[in-house]
């Protein structure tokens, strides 16, 4: 019995620390990393946008549609931004200008976005990513040609053999961090999310800021979503984000609204999500009941709950941007 436990743990560890697992977990976290940075920027402006899933799908379908019809990567990304940005714009009009409840607006965007995306996507569901674009993402720009020794081989396989999309995602998180904490515009964004009335009275154009970052955040979600049909899968399937947009909302809390931590957070969530698949392929583990596929897919959410509880014990921990959920109207009090 105890021996079984140890050998099971051993198999699990050997999966988790294998270069191939790490590499696929990284690849799998790209969508969530873009999404988390995007949602985090939105929340920093004081708006919780639950429409991430919808925006991801909008970005994915519009971008993929453009890619298939034009074979242009530039147009694909542009249209992913337009699609998701359009969804975010609707959300911004509802919550900033019309001061509709943020949860309601976000949920509506999720449902509406998915519907629109699926109907558009069905037009390109039988085509695959154009060759010229697929070729770009076959390249592994940082991969070593002949790594010497087991260590470098491991590093190479786990971290350096990714396409450019992956590194751009990490770069976006780094840039967002610098922006948020080291620039004046970032400071203005943070103040807006902390205390909109104070920001307004300080001469900050809060409405403009909210619109801008809600839309920018939406666009990042869209670019994240585009990764799925364009690179990861190479074709369109309806509802292909499969709940990652919801995980993102939890991830933002998990990483305490810090883009740099989002890199690690997205990785953890990404690996938990694919752990289910890997375990299934392992004969030893797949026979153990708790490694059931359905239970495994619960792990990211379980982790979120655990983290939230842990944080609630730290009374002094910053609870996130104060203005989240509160509509702002200057003449109101």
């Amino acid at each position, binding site marked *: 019995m105890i021996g079984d436990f140890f050998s099971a743990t051993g198999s699990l560890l050997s999966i988790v620390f294998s270069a191939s697992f790490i590499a696929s977990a990284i690849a799998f976290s790209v969508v969530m990393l873009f999404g988390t940075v995007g949602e985090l920027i939105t929340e920093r402006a004081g708006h919780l946008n639950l429409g991430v899933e919808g925006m991801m799908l909008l970005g994915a379908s519009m971008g993929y549609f453009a890619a298939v019809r034009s074979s242009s990567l530039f147009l694909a990304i542009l249209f992913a931004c337009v699609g998701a940005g359009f969804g975010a714009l609707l959300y911004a009009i509802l919550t900033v200008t019309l001061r509709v409840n943020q949860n309601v607006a976000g949920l509506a965007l999720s449902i509406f976005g998915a519907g629109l995306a699926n109907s558009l996507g069905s037009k390109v569901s039988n085509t695959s990513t154009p060759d010229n674009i697929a070729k770009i993402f076959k390249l592994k720009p940082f991969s070593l040609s002949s790594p010497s020794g087991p260590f470098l081989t491991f590093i190479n396989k786990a971290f350096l053999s990714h396409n450019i999309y992956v590194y751009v995602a990490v770069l976006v998180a780094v840039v967002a961090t610098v922006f948020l*904490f*080291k*620039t*004046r515009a*970032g*400071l*203005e964004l*943070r*103040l807006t999310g*902390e*205390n909109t*009335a*104070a*920001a*307004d*009275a*300080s*001469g*900050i*154009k809060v409405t403009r800021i909210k619109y801008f970052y809600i839309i920018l955040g939406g666009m990042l979600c869209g670019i994240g979503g585009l990764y799925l049909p364009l690179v990861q899968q190479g074709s369109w399937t309806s509802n292909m984000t499969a709940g990652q947009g919801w995980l993102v909302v939890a991830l933002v809390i998990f990483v305490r609204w810090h883009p740099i931590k989002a890199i690690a957070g997205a990785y953890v969530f990404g690996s938990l999500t694919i752990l289910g698949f890997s375990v299934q392929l392992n004969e030893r583990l797949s026979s153990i009941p708790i490694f059931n596929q359905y239970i495994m897919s619960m792990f990211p959410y379980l982790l979120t709950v655990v983290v939230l509880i842990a944080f609630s014990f730290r009374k002094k921990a*910053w609870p996130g941007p*104060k203005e989240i959920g509160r509509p702002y109207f*200057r*003449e109101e*009090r």
Partner: protein
Amino acid sequence: MEPNIRKDTQPAFSMRGITKIFGAVVANEAVDFEVLPGEIHALLGENGSGKSTLMNVLSGIYRPDEGQIEVNGEIKDFRSPGDAIDSGIGMIHQHFKLAEAMTATDNIVAGMKKPPKNSIKKDDVLRANILRYASRSPSKTHPKINEFSSRFGIEFDPSIPASQLSVSQKQSVEIIKVLLRGANILILDEPTAVLTPQEAKKLFTVLRKMASQGCAIVFISHKLNEIMTLCDRVTVLRKGKSIETCNVSDIDAYDLVEKMVGRKINLSINKPDPDPKKQVCLEVKGLTYSDSKAVPKLDNLSFTTHYGEILGVAGLAGGGQKELCESIAGIIRPQQGEIMVDEERITGLSPRDITQKGVAMCFIPEDRLGMGLVASMGIDENILLKEYALTKGPLIRMKDVETKAEKIIKELDIKTPGLKHPVRMLSGGNIQKVILGREIHLNPKLMIAAYAVRGLDIHSSYTIYNLLNEQKQKNVSVLYIGEDLDVLIDLCDRIMVLCQGKNMGIVDSSATTKEEIGQMMSGTTLEELRRGVSYV
């Protein structure tokens, strides 16, 4: 002292025919108001007379429904607070506008505009320097901000989060925030309501200095003596209309009150005799409390209160008054000591049980927000919040509550369009009256009134004093925690002086002086004082 203003100068700003309507409430009606450069101009009026509204219009927060604003002779149409800042207007709001989780520096710097390039003006260079490092390496901005604030004799640590600053430091941050934005028209909305007398004095020095440099200053206060000593002119608002502007030197306090209220009112406290039976209501024995950082707040404090008597509590800010109130009300648990009401121990009981034992408390905190009201509910429902615990049966009788609400509105003269109007929309002073009225109407045995008149206009303050006296005549035991020593002496029967959580002694108000209380507040016990006197 001659005011350093010249009558022939162009006003720093002038507002003409300003009207502002909120739904059913006409907050400002055709108000005219102008202030000259170098002048400290008081804006006076009862709670809800529209002072804050008028100044919010000037600072671009509210758009007026009618009227015109001129700054330095130019007609302005402010579409946002940013526009007003660009015209040199800076406002320190009645309720501060700071992000608590962010540092003072971040609060100050966010939204500041770059000064014109290549400007060689001293301030512009400093501003440019502050901005350059503001977000990249805040530690380099701190000394620059200190340098700027020390010019006005203001001090605070720019590197700590706003939540850790004291109220007066927060105010300093707000002042520096607007000054660094180049404000030369400064609006202070009840700045002294939250300050100790010493802090207020320091603020006045700062304001005088700024006025002498040509700033136009609008000063809102309910304290007439402050207006008399600090200001050059005063404009009185009544029910949203501007009544009169005059030189402070030409008018006395009584005339001002009459203009404010619209009729002569009696500003004296007639003190009924305390109940001679001296029956003990509250007994506090050896109360000791240290806060979570182990700072001692109450130190072996003992005293008793009697039915039909008002016991005053005097002391410097932070002398343990708050902790005393909270211990009695059951909000905090003292480490040592006992509290008894009617010889029954109440230490350790829940706040609700203590309320049921007949203890009512009205505590107005320094920031005057979060005072135990639900902002979006009407007066009636807010009364119900406390009331329901005392009624029997599962059902609520709304009719009773409404009658009670109407009575409170009438008695305390609360300005509201109706008892269902959300309290959040009331003016600061009126919100406070709601709390007080609610507590009084619980018919308590022991009524704790802490800083009950903070931010109240004079008329309402006297209404409150009279209400407390009425309670005393109804044989309620009243514990009154106050700041104004004159009022403490006029209102209370006995006065206990606290200093760093210790009882310095209890004096009879008819046999004491402000000086004596002042000495005790700074740490001399009554015994030492009396001994000192006998030695002479």
